[in-house]
Structure formats: structure tokens, C-alpha cells
């Protein structure tokens, strides 16, 4: 029999539910014990046969009060669009979970979470865990525009469950909802009046670079979840390298100490051929 305890070996899952999140984002729900046991920040390699295999953050969804695994995908290029269009009953292949996870220091009292786009998948999971552990967590959720705000319902429910109201804030680039401007600007405006012990961030790299800078300015440790082109996810192809680190194996989450060493962070990444490309702000 195939060895199903080795999570690097491809396994198939049947899609149980598809949730419309925004006009361009859907959550694909399926059963997988290994994913359910994953920690916020870990990711799966998702095979959309015969189109592509893509890294996707592992999410958790409750369906009829049972926990299921999920990925939340924004339709973009060929691969993500093929995944986006998958329907209930379809088979997808997965392997993983891969990567490390956000670390929560013992006795942490409060934390600021700053996420954008599908970067909210791990952050909302982390947010939920922190609230569950009675840690004062504040979440900044960014999107380009109102329609693209992700997980608003989920977060509102979380707040209600925890009798909180004001610890989640929204920002949109076009000002159609919440704060008018970037998540980083919003974070800055919060930090001037309130002290946090740690910041967690996941989203566009330049946004995370902004958070890193805020961290330095306000002397707050930061953990950021990085994205690089991933082929193998198992530390052999080198395609995900950033300086001397492999995002798939050493990351995806790096802390301030590491981020400081990573001169390529927010500066350059490698394309599919391995050539350096540069972030433009």
C-alpha cells in the first residue's frame, strides 16, 4: 500500500464545499487530517491536474461544526484560476503541510497582525488562536477595494464570540471601506498611541517590508511570512531561495533578526529561471 504517513507523497482529496469570498477569491474546502493538524503559516502544494501545482496557505473551515482543511485562492494566472474554478466533488492533489509557523512567545500579552489579500489566510487563523488564548490581538486587514475585503464575516464572528468589537480594522487602497490607505499607514497610526509586543505580517512583500521598518522604528519584533517561487517545497530545487535561506524549508516565516540579514527581502526575488528580479514600489 502507498505510504500515507509520508506527507511529501501526493494524496488526493475531494472538494467538499466552495465558498465565494470576494468576486475574485474563493475558499476550497476538503478533508485532510494532516492539514487540520497544521499551524498558521504552513502551506500545502496543491496540484490542479493537469494544469499546475501551487503553494497555498492551509486554512481551516468549520462545516456543520466539523473542522475541514481549506485553501483560499485568488484567481490570477493559469494555475490559480484553474483552482478557483474547481467544483464540489472534484479531485485535487495535495502534499504537505510544509514550512514553519508563526511563533507565539510565552506570556505574550498583545500583538498586532497586519495582512493583505490572501496573506490573511494564516493571519486570521493566528488571530483566532491568539484570541482563544486570551491574548490581546489587533488585526489590520487590507484590500485594494471594498469588494476585495477577505474574511470580514469570519473575523466579525470571531470578535462576537470573544465579546470584542474594535480589535479588527480594515484598510482599502481606494478608501472605499475602512481606513483610506495602506495597512502600513494604518498600523503606524495605531502604533503611535499603543505599544505592542510583537507584529505578525503576511501579504505583499513591500507591505511586509513596511511593517519591518515600523518594527525597527518602534522597537517591536516582527514575524513575516515570505513568498518565493516554489517548485519542490522540499528544499531541493533552490527556486525559493532568499539570500542563503530557503523559504520553503527555513521559512516561510522569518523573524526580525533574520529579516535584517535578508538583504533580498523587499528588494529582489528570483524568477522561474533563477534570475534575480527586483521589486518596484
Amino acid at each position, binding site marked *: 500500500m*502507498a*505510504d500515507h504517513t*509520508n506527507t*511529501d*507523497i*501526493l494524496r*488526493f482529496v475531494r472538494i467538499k464545499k466552495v465558498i465565494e469570498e470576494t468576486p475574485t477569491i474563493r475558499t476550497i474546502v476538503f478533508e485532510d487530517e494532516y492539514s487540520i493538524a497544521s499551524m498558521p503559516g504552513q502551506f500545502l*502544494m496543491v*496540484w490542479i*491536474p*493537469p*494544469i*499546475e*501545482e*501551487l503553494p497555498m496557505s492551509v486554512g481551516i473551515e468549520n462545516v456543520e461544526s466539523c473542522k475541514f482543511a481549506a485553501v483560499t485562492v485568488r484567481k490570477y494566472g493559469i*494555475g490559480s484560476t484553474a483552482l478557483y474554478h474547481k467544483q464540489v466533488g472534484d*479531485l485535487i*492533489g495535495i*502534499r504537505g503541510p510544509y514550512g514553519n509557523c508563526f511563533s507565539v512567545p510565552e506570556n505574550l500579552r498583545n500583538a498586532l497582525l497586519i495582512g493583505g489579500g490572501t496573506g490573511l489566510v494564516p493571519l486570521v487563523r493566528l488571530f483566532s488562536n491568539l484570541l482563544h488564548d486570551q491574548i490581546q490581538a489587533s488585526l489590520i486587514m487590507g484590500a485594494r477595494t471594498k469588494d476585495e475585503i477577505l474574511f470580514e464575516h469570519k473575523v466579525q464572528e470571531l470578535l462576537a464570540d470573544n465579546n470584542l468589537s474594535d480589535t479588527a480594522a480594515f484598510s482599502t487602497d481606494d478608501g472605499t471601506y475602512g481606513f483610506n490607505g495602506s495597512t502600513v499607514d494604518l498600523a503606524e497610526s495605531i502604533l503611535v498611541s499603543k505599544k505592542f509586543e510583537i507584529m505578525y505580517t503576511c501579504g505583499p512583500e513591500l507591505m511586509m517590508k513596511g511593517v519591518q521598518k515600523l518594527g525597527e522604528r518602534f522597537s517591536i519584533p516582527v514575524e513575516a511570512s515570505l513568498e518565493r517561487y516554489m*517548485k*519542490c517545497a*522540499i*528544499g*531541493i*530545487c*533552490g*527556486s525559493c*531561495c532568499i*539570500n*542563503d535561506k*530557503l523559504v520553503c*524549508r527555513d521559512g516561510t516565516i522569518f523573524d526580525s533578526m533574520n529579516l535584517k540579514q535578508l538583504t533580498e527581502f523587499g528588494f529582489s526575488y*528570483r*524568477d*522561474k*529561471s*533563477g*534570475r*534575480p528580479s527586483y521589486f518596484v514600489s
Partner: protein
Amino acid sequence: MGLEIESNMLNLEIAGISLRNPAILASGFLGISQAIFERIFDEGAGAVVSKSISKYPMEGFRNPTVVVLENKSYINAVGLSNPGHESFYEEVSTNDKVPLIVSLVGSDPSDFEVMTKKFNKSRIIGFEINLSCPHVQKLGMEVGDDPQMVKSIVKAAKSNTTKPVFVKVGIGNTNLIDISQTAINAGADGITAINTIRAMKISIDNFNPILSNKIGGLSGSSIKPIAIRCVYELSKKFSVPIIGCGGVSNWEDALEFMIAGATSFQLGTAMGFDGMSIFNSINSGILKYLKKKGYQSVKELIGRSHKY
């Protein structure tokens, strides 16, 4: 860490190059970044082979490019993705400590002429010509199966560099011994054996070949007994150094290659399973074995099986 990888019991020479130990990272593993080369070296590797570099950048195949199997083995069809020789020349321009072998791939002698000429100026220790990539058309194995082409490619490389040129062979459609003979006659300073073997994984759930290229190359433990045989045959026949490659997972495997006749060995797949610390643990294992058995140097083991 330091102790093992620096012990002079592990020192050796291949084709005039001195290595601190025989454990070399195989081509295609993490092989595109200078920063990573340095890390691998610091983790204990005796030398590092780059990803196979072509004249122009190559994107490679779409994902899935790697299938993990039971048995510590992979099938991959990355498709020789690489930044191209000019970008890679820049990449390694800062190298000053890593014993780096640049792997080259191309479809005709002029490709190799251009690339060897360029990298001859880099601080690298030698070249490995990949004649054996089993899954990319018009590169690698298709070239390696044509003796005339092998001859002119090796000659083109040799006449444009003063550094040693190794030729990497595989289990293809032509006789391994014949093609190696051709390469050696044309001036190759050594042979690396073997590359991955054409293989495939098909899903019984959806009938799809899993790799986007359908066919890929098998590496890891599964191919070790085949690679050992190739090294044995090649090293019995030829006097140039043979670098063993294919399925080295631990120090026992590494020693088996050397006893079979390899002057040193490369590994890749096992690093995927066990991480970069594998270089150090293999070197430690070898050192412990040498001490226990009373040998002065790992060199004493090379080809010890030949007399049986």
C-alpha cells in the same frame, strides 16, 4: 562540525583539484545561488556542483516538477531551468571560498565554447558537462547519445579552459562505457556517474502522469545499486577519476561508492530527505569507520573491491 570536515584523513585530489572531503553536492540541488553555495560549504560539503547552466536562461517545465516516492527517491522534471550563463557568471563573481564546479548543458559545441571561455575567468574549480539529463529534448541525454557530438563538445570545452572538465553520464540508450571512452579520448578529466534514470509516476486516481512533463528522472535510493555498478565498471576500465552519484543516503552508501571505485561522490536526493546536515553526518561516519578500521586516509578505500 569543523573537526570532521577538516580532518586530513578525508582529504583527496580529483584531476588535480584538492578537496577537503569527498562529499559533493550534485548538480540541480539548490544550485543557482552563491549564498546557498556558501551555506552548503559551511555545512560540510567538500565541493558543490551548480545547477546545469545553459547559454540562455531557461524557465524549465511547469509544476509539478518533482514527485516524492516512498524509498527515499524522487522523480523530477524541472526542465533544466537556470538563469543562463551570463546571469550565473555574475552570481558566482563574488565566490572566493566555495570549491565550485559549474555544470554546463548545451546542444552544440559552440554553446560549450562560449560558456567555458566565460567561466574560465571565474573562481571555480572545474566544469561538469551534463550529457545525461533524461527529460529535456535536444539537451542532455539526446546529446550524450551521439558519440560524434560528445567528442566535439568535450573538445570545445577543453580547448577553452585550463580547469578540469568532468563529463556526467547516465543510463540512456547508448553504452555507458562507450560514451565515457569517447569523452575520455576527447580529453575529459573524469566521469561523473550517474544522472537520473527516465521514469514516470501515474496517478491511479485521475489517470494523469503527475509531472507536467509526464516523464522525469528517477533519483535517490532506488538507483543506488545501478549507480554502484556503473562506477565499478567505469573505474575498472578507465584510469581517470570517477565521481559516483546516485542514491547516496548515508556514510555506508558513500563508502560503497568509493570501494566500488569512485574517487569521490555526489549526493542530492538524500539532502532533500535529511537536510543539509547530511554532509557532516556522512563525513563523520566515514571518519569513524576509517579510525575503527585503522586506515590513514579515505583514499585507501578507492576501488578496493576491484581485486575481488
